[in-house]
Each structure stands twice: as C-alpha cells, then as structure tokens.
C-alpha cells in the first residue's frame, strides 16, 4: 500500500499550545491536522511531507456548537461533519448547512472530518491529486514540485478547484470565521478567508488555526444547497450551489445571496445574480435572468470529473432549479 512519509505527531493540550507548536517551525514543516481525511491521503501521495503534525482532534476548545436560528450559531471548528449535519439546531435553523455537511464524502469520513477542515480543504485538480510517481510521469505541476499548470499550460497561476461543500453555504449565510495565531485572535468574513488561487487559496498564516465559525441569525431565511457529482457518495462536488433568500409576504425578495462551489479556486459569491433577485418577486423571468447571471462568472476548467463545458452549463440549470425550489415554483419542463 501507499505509506505515509515519516513525521512526528504532536498532541497539544490547549489551542494556545497548538499555535505555539505550529509557529515554532518554518512554514511547511509543521501542519495542523484534525480529522486527517484530506491531509493523510495527500501525505501518502507526497503533496505534503511535514516533519510535524499538530493534532487538533482532542482540543475541547474546538468541540462545541451552540445557538439557534434566532440568535445565530457558533460552531467549533473541531465539530465533525456528522455532528454538524445531524445537530437539531442546524437541521432546523440552517438546513442547507446540514445538507452540505451531510453530503461530504461518505459516512465514515464524515465521522472523522471536521467542519474546520472542510473549510480549509486543499484545492483539487486531477493533475495534482495523484501519487508522487504519477505526477513525476506527467512532469509535475505548478501546485506541487513543477512549473507548468497542465490545465492551462500558458497560465502563471494554478487553477485547482475549491471543493468544499460547506463553504458555499456558509458564504451564502454570511458566516464569519475566527482564527487564532501567534499575534492573537482575528475574526473575518468567510469570503475574506479565500483567494482565487489554487496554491495560496487561504488568507491564513501557517501558524493560524481556524477555531470557530459564527453564523448570523437565519430566522425566516429560505436556504438550499445542491451538489452536483457523479455518485451519491464519495465524490467531491463538480458544482455546489448555495442559496439563501428572504421573501416578504407579497413574495418580493428582500435579501438574496448565491454562492457557487467547485467553479473556481475559491468559492464564489454570485453577487450580480443576487442583485437581480433583490427587490423582485421570483417569477420565472427573474429566476432565469439570475441563473444566467450566475452562469457567466463561473469558469470551470478541465481538471475535475465531467467536462468543463458541461459543468458551466450546469451552473445555470442548477441555480435556476434551486431558485424555483425555494420560490415554491415548479421548474418548467425542458425542451
């Protein structure tokens, strides 16, 4: 079988100690690990060869979830995806988050993988998520060990894909994240955590740890998450559509946010599409216009399952379908 590279596992007792252990090493030499469902397979394929792993799994400071739709939610980054997806307050007040967390990979991996880990998930590309040997045969790539992006060989940037399921939902819900680092704690909008760059995809120092996610109150919001993938389990999204809407009594949309996953190196907020919804009733015309607007900025490339032309087309279809569903309308029959 593929073997892990040698490393030393450090088990801090407190978050502060974890930050210190990470800060003591140069970048890349020490990495934080929670569920390990993304990191360990990547280490086996030599995407990462840290000398030290700092284990976050047993830190009680990361293991909480409180609040509800009325007050807002605070989720410790160490809560597993199973815990998040089955939590009564999440299911009741933030059903799209429960859906997204419950669609990640398989039950076994959701029992190990954490919400913090899913937000920090390494970007993915089928030239990158391969063994060292395979990458050597292809001549390595820009993201690791090489100097060419095989997806767009003329490109100077990496086009690996943001593949988190929970990030688009939390973006649409205007979540904030709190990071603890050597300089102390800072809180920022989730959108500010991400960069549209396949390599430097997080605005996060190597010794900073994502500690909690704060989600604003969601009472009265209609929300949904739709995940496109080939199979009902295992697969990362080839498209994620997250929508949060507020509709007035007369059906006018007073608040709208759309976020897309797996169409770029960062989860994208489709602001133009949201603006088309805001202040309007969700008629089929408005929905189709918003779907067309969401479709435009999506720029998938040929580096995941299914072709890029198909994935781009599907943005429009699935955004429209999600909006019809939230508006309580039947989607029109095609063709």
């Amino acid at each position, binding site marked *: 079988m593929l073997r892990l590279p040698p490393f030393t596992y450090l088990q801090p007792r407190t978050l502060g100690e974890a930050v210190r252990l990470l800060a003591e090493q140069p970048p890349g030499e020490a990495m934080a690990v929670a569920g390990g469902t993304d990191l360990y397979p990547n280490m086996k394929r030599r995407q990462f060869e840290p000398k030290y792993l700092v284990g976050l799994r047993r830190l009680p400071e990361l293991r909480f979830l409180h609040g509800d739709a009325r007050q807002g939610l605070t989720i410790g980054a160490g809560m597993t995806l199973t815990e998040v997806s089955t939590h009564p307050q999440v299911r009741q007040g933030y059903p799209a988050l429960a859906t997204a967390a419950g669609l990640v990979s398989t039950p076994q991996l959701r029992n190990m993988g954490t919400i913090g880990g899913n937000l920090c998930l390494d970007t993915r590309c089928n030239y990158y998520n391969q063994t060292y040997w395979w990458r050597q045969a292809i001549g390595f790539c820009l993201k690791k060990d090489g100097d060419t992006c095989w997806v767009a060989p003329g490109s100077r940037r990496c086009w690996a894909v943001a593949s988190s399921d929970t990030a688009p939902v939390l973006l649409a819900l205007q979540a904030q994240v709190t990071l603890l680092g050597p300089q102390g704690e800072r809180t920022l909008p989730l959108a500010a955590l991400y960069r549209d760059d396949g390599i430097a995809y997080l605005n996060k120092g190597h010794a900073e740890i994502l500690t909690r996610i704060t989600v604003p109150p969601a009472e009265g919001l209609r929300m949904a998450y739709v995940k496109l993938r080939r*199979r009902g389990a295992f*697969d990362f999204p080839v498209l994620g559509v997250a929508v949060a809407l507020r509709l007035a009594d007369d059906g006018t949309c007073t608040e709208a946010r759309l976020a897309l996953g797996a169409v770029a190196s960062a989860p994208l907020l489709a602001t133009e599409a949201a603006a088309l919804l805001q202040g309007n009733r969700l008629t089929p015309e408005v929905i189709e216009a918003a779907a067309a607007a969401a479709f435009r900025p999506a720029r998938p490339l040929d580096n995941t399952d299914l072709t890029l032309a*198909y994935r781009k087309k599907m943005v429009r279809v699935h955004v429209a379908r999600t909006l019809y569903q939230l508006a309580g309308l039947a989607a029109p029959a095609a063709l």
Partner: protein
Amino acid sequence: MAADDYTLIGRPIPARVDGAGKVTGLTRYADDLFPARLLYGKLLRSPYPHARILRIDTCKAAALPGVKAVITGADLPRPFSIMPVNQDEHALAIDKVRYVGEPVAAVAAVDEETAEAALHLIEVAYEPLPPVMSIEEALAQPDNRIHTYNRVGNVHRVVALEFGDVEAGFAEADYIREDTFFFQGNTHLPMEQHAAVAHCTPDGQITLWSATQTPHYVHRALAAVLDIPPSRIRVIATPVGGGFGGKSDPFAHEFCAVKLSMLTGRPVKICLTREEVFYAHRGRHPVLMWIRTGVKRNGAITAMHFKSFIDGGAYSSYGVATTYYTGALQTVTYRVPNYRFEGLRVFTNKPPCGPKRGHGTPQPRYALEVHLDKIAEDLGLDPVQIRRPHLAKPFSMTVNHLRITSCALDECLDAVVKRSEFLQKHRRLPFGKGVGLACSAYLSGAGLPIYWNEMPHSGVTLQLDRSGSVCVFCGAVDIGQGSDSVLAFTVAEELGIDPRDVRLVTADTGITPVDLGSYSSRVTFMAGNAAIVAARQLRERLFAAVAEHWGIPARHLRAAQGRIFAVTDPSRSMPFAEAVQRAEAKFGTLSASGSYTPPPLAGKYKGHGVGPSPAYSYTAAVAQVDVDPDTGWVTVEKVWIAHDIGKALNPYLVEGQIEGSVYMALGEVLMEEQVFRRGVHKFPSMLEYKSPTFLEMPEVETILIESLDPEGPYGAKEAGQGPLLPVIPAVANAVYDAIGVRLDEIPITPEKVLKGLELRAKGQVARLGPRGIPAFAFPPPRCVEVPEEWLVHLPDAKTRRP
C-alpha cells in the same frame, strides 16, 4: 431423479461456505499472510508510455540498508504470456517499455518504506519514443512499432472468416443497414488489490500464494520463466477478493516475488497499490465496430457482416481469443444464415487489455442489439417482433459451427417483456422516460483449453473419513462466484449428507487435481460435473458395503439426511458414518476421483477454438430509464432480467451473480472509462475512476428460467458473465426511447446526452458515436461451409446450397 427429489440442489440456501469467514474478517487473503522473516517487495514502473531502456543502475538501491535484493529484466529473461502464441511479455521490461506503469525493476526490503525508498535510488536512463495511444494512431503509424515480432506495423492479429455466402445473403435482403459503434475500455476494479507471497525454502521448493483466478496457468508460467521443474513449484490461490477476469494472467509481481525469494531465501510479499492495479489492468478492450445486416421485411436476417477494431494495449495477453470473441457469439442468439467477421487487434502504448466479465462479447453485443433496435424501427417492427421469430433454436448448429444444446431464450424474452410491460411502455412513455430491450448468449465454459492438450478440464478427488466427513480436493478457485459452495452442495447432495460435513481443499497445485481456472464461466459446469462423478463412485462403494451387510441389492439403497436407507424397507437405515466404516472395512481407505472433459466441439476451420462451449446460457433484459433533459442525467429506474440458467443449483447464488452482472454493466454503460492523457492513465484511483456505488443501483427483478441442459451438472449452465451482456444495450435503447437520441458510443455520460439533445433541438441527426472506421484492407476471408446440421433448422437454406 425428478427435480423435486433433491434436498439441496435447487433450493435457495443462504449459507455460502465462505460467507461467515468473509463477513467476520476470518478469511485470510494473500495480503493477510505474514510468514516469519517476511520481506516486502515493490516494483519500479516506467514513467514513459514508449521508450527504450538505455541502462539501469541499481547499485545505490542495493546499497541502501534494509534492502535485500534488487532485480531487473536481466534476472528474468524468459518471456511468457497466458496464450502459447505470442509469448511477448517479460516480468520486468527488457530493452524497451511499452506503457506507463510497466514494471522495470523490483526490490525486496525489510519493510515497505525501505523498499519504496530503494525504488527512488534506481537510476534508469530512457530514450523516449513517440507513443501510440489509439486504434487510429496504431494504424496510421506502421513504422513506429511497439513490437517487432508481429508481421505488420502495430497489427497484433487479423481475422477474416466467412460462413455461408454473405453476398448472396445481402442480395436476398429486403433491407440493409450499416452502423458504427464505439465501446470505451474499462477495468475490473476488484475490491482486493493483487497480492502474492512467495517462499523458496532451502530444499529448493517454491510456494507462491497468490490472489489469482488461474493457479494452474500461473504454475506453468512460473516454471517456464524461472526455468525450474514445475514439480518443485506449488501455487496456492488464496481467497480472491474479486477477479472479474483481472486476475487471470500470470503477473509481473508473481514472478518477481518468487525470484526475490529465491535470491534472499526469505518469503517475499508484493501487494499492488490501487494505482498499480490500474496498470496491471487486462480489462475491457476499447472496440470500434462496424456492422451491416440484411433482413427480410419480417426481420429475418439474411446476412451479417461485422468488423471489429480492437485496442489491445501493449501486449497480447488473451488478445487472440478476445479478437475471435468479438465475432463468435453474434450467431448464438439469432439465426444468421450467412455471416462474415473481420477482426483486427492493434498494439497501443497502454496497459494490456484482456478478459473482463463477458470477454470480448459485451462490445459486439452492445453494437448488435442497438443495431437491431434501429432496424426494427426502420421496418416498423417493435423490438420484440424483430427478435422473437428469429431466435436461436435449442439443439441446433450455428452457421459458424457452434453447437447449441438447451436454449430458452424465447422464454427469457417473453418473461422480461411481460413483467416489465415493455410493449405497453415502448414509445409510449412521456418524454424523458424510456424502456429498452436486448438479448444475449454466453458460454458455460470454453470448450477448449488455453494450451492444447487432451486432459480433463477439471478434476475432483474426494476422501472419506470414518467420522462421516468428506474432504473435497479440487483445483477450482472461488473468486466470489460461489464455486466452493457449489462443490460442497453437490457432494453433499450426492452423498445425502449435511454440507457442513464437507471440507474443501481447493486451488492448490501441490495438492488438488487440476481445474483450469475461474474464467469463461466454466467452474460450476465443469468442476460440478467432476464432483458428481467422484461422489457417485463413492456412493456406489458405500451402497455395495451396506447392501452386502443387509443382504439386499444395492439398487434399493438411497442416501439422504445423513443416512443410508433401503427404499424397499423404510425401517432399515444406518447413519452415513457407519456406512463409511463398513465400506472402509470392505474396500480399504476410501477415496474417489472424477473429472470432466468437454465433448469434442471444435469445428474444422482455423480460429474455431474460440466460441465453442458445452452449453450456452441465454439472457434477456429490459431497462427502464429516466433522462433529465436539462442535465443529460440518466437514471436507471429498474432492470428486469431473465436468465436461462439451465438449472439454478442455488437460486441465491445465481441471483447474486445476476445482480452483480447488472451492477457491473450499469457502470460500463453509464460511467466507467479507462482513458489516458499525455500517455498516462487519467485517474488511476477509486475516487476519480467513476464506478457506481450501491446508491446508484436500481431495483433488479430477476427471473430464472430452467431449461435443464443435458450436459450441465443437474442441468445447470453459467450465471457469472452472461447476464452482464444485454444490460448495456438495453440501457442504450432505453435512452433512445426516452429522448430520441442514439448513443452509439459508451459510456453514456451526461455531457454526451446533452450534446445529443442539442443536435436534436437543432434538427440535426441526434446521434453520438464514431463517424466511421479506419480504412484497413482485411485479407480475403477464410470461407467455411455451413455445417450440415444447420439445414435441419433453416429449411429454406437448402435451396441455396450448391
């Protein structure tokens, strides 16, 4: 004996003999073996699809502490291949590499980490050559040769055969149609990765434990490659965690494990990673096909011409057989009076293709069944009308000299049509919903062995113990299909004992009589027959001893429920163990052997070795699909499948094989593709090589049809492969019924469906598939006369005969 007289045979018995071990983790697969002083082997593989090896330097690797041996092609210079012709493989590449992933060197070390580190220290200098990555490239670049032993360019094999008079047949036709199809390659994806443990002991005895479907052929190949008498080599097939044809060849890791053990004197294990399994491959060949059929207005076929262009990958493997198989079984489902087959297999710089469930027949079956669906529509017939009157008949010969015995294809077809309400649904469901139909046939074991010999294909030895237990020795390998259970139930049935009193020693070339292996759906048929012969011999001796004791004729005795009874006097019975003791007292130690050799089936023309079988199974299937017109997503809602099993020895096992076949077929038709980019396998992982999970599995309604084959054990035929065949075209035909788009290329992915719908919306031909076939001049066909027996079943053919 009437069917109802059986106590075990034909009953749905859920207890497989291997079940408890597998679900509790007690089963020891090859990778679970840890002999003392075990070393771990790893293979260095080529990163180039096509390159000359200029030199290999293993010094640094050999010097690494913990490394015990390093070998290269020079250490294993003798070639091998599963087929006696085209011995074109080496355990480790010599002079040249022909695909990314081809083994070049091997290391044995004290642990896997050290072995892995040693691989990085082996220096190989390559001179890259232009790779040949498709059928078209192989034919377009005859001077860029992958091998030199073949006669021309990259052509591995050419076949051209004609049976009857095809031109006259087309002249008689009222309607002629031509179509082209492409079937993408895919792989077996067994749960268990290939693994082998070799031990060469100081006395020079070699044992190889390996996850193989063919221990007998591995035994022969080891002897040839290592140049060691086969009598010193023992191959033990460990329980196989899924084979599907992917563990039917001798493999590099098996030779290397043995060689490394010979050099170190320590046991050596090599377990492939999942990625390496994709390189070992031997999976479904990509095949480009052209078919031309002439029919009468009522759908009767007057002539058929079929061409296949087969992408073989880098080596021959089973490819000669595959080539013939793409043309062999078209005639076994429908009466084809005149038939021409032209097949061509090319070499490409990809992992070698080989046998996967259905071996060379799913591709032409897909083409033929979709082609017939189109002809039916052209003639204004429904898919049942074009097939029903022209089905193969029981006890007939096909035009290409295949002997059909039992055949209940008509019942299979009627059953699925009725249960699925096919005729009420076909062309009548709302847009986006559709049903499709297809039929098929498959062998119950190849009629001829892989290497020419006149010995039995399967042997069973039974040994009786005074306790009343029976030990079965048989070379057959249970790869999950249930062959061990069939052996135990068969012996228990014949001796009237509890199957739990039967012990099995199987698949050990040092101990068990030869069985040729778990391929071509042959084991239940052949080992089952051998077991019956052996068990009946033993029973005769038990009856002789009991008859003598009771002073009654042996013909009055029966064995059942763990006792021997006198049918004439129900008060008289004795426990089985007592009968054994009396027989042992009379005859000495009790054992018996039985074997099975298929009847002579080979026709009188070259190439007839592939296709004959002692019996053919038949299948019909209907698939119902939902196609989302916005996304192109195809959801299979239900599959109805009727299978002529001859006799279901254990309906649970048969249904399991059929459901597994449906599952595998759905993966092939909708998702799976073994594809390459820049010469490298695009995604050699279970995550990105898309194969369905059980969440994608639809409801399957299985109908077993029992035609009681005269040659099969208790009338049984095969179930392991045939049921895969009709499902693929049934889905393609259902997609057409749903949205009016022809998918003449599989897999049928959402993007292809959407593309087809776009063409349809623009008023263009709503078809996706190959535009044509390469210009290739096949040699004039070898013309074969139709067999005499053919006339019995096609009276109007008489008038055409000279």
